[in-house]
């Protein structure tokens, strides 16, 4: 393979953990891309992909917790990670301010994910050199 100058990537994940492999495939790609010297502009969770950002995900002790594994990677690499607000709210993924706004009993957005609109994704499409989508299994 030819060596190219570093590129910027946005990874969109629309498959949920435990009902699809999308978060795993995306993480393997993200690790390989950063190892190759590329920059991750953003990870964007959309559709069922927002379930990855639930801090309540509790995997059996002999299974990987994909939320924790992803959050560790995002913190280590200081990669911005956005959860689409419309996808998240209708699936019960809320941060503290949405919890207050809608007067819910709890919030569950895992750190370092942030909630924002599709505008973040539009910006990525317009500015990242590559945008990849990691889709559900069905």
């Amino acid at each position, binding site marked *: 393979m030819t060596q190219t100058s570093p590129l910027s990537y946005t990874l969109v994940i629309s498959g949920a953990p435990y009902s699809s492999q999308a978060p795993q495939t995306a993480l393997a790609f993200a690790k390989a891309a950063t190892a190759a010297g590329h920059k991750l502009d953003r990870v964007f969770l959309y559709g069922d992909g927002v379930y990855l950002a639930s801090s309540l995900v509790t995997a059996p002790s002999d299974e990987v917790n994909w939320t924790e594994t992803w959050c560790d990677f995002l913190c280590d690499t200081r990669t911005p990670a956005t959860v689409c607000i419309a996808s998240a709210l209708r699936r019960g993924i809320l941060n503290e301010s949405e919890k207050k706004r809608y007067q819910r009993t709890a919030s569950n957005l895992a750190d370092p994910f942030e909630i924002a609109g599709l505008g973040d994704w539009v910006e990525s499409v317009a500015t990242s050199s590559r*945008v990849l989508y990691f889709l559900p299994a069905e």
Partner: protein
Amino acid sequence: MNVLIVIDRAPYGDWSGRESLDMAFSLAAFDKPVALLFRGAGINWLRHGQLPEDIGQKSGERNLAAAPIFGVSDLLADQQAASDYRLTLDQLLPAASLVEVRPELYRQYDHVISL
């Protein structure tokens, strides 16, 4: 930069089509060129006369009728899918146009997205 969003899942049975439309409308809201392609079971999004009130959902047809006003350039209907579902042009939303889906169609766009 122009974007094609492909919807190949039927309306109402799951939310992927609705969330694909949200992407298209967001791009349009930021003045990015965007078109929609309906293929496979997704062609049924374009069927005229949808009444989803009894299943507690919003009308996809009404959404799509507004697409050109919001700046979505094209509602492309895969002619193979239309024929598979016995849909003729007059049974589709007025804004839809029939296309043959070939690799050349996808190549006209910088980004092709299907959820």
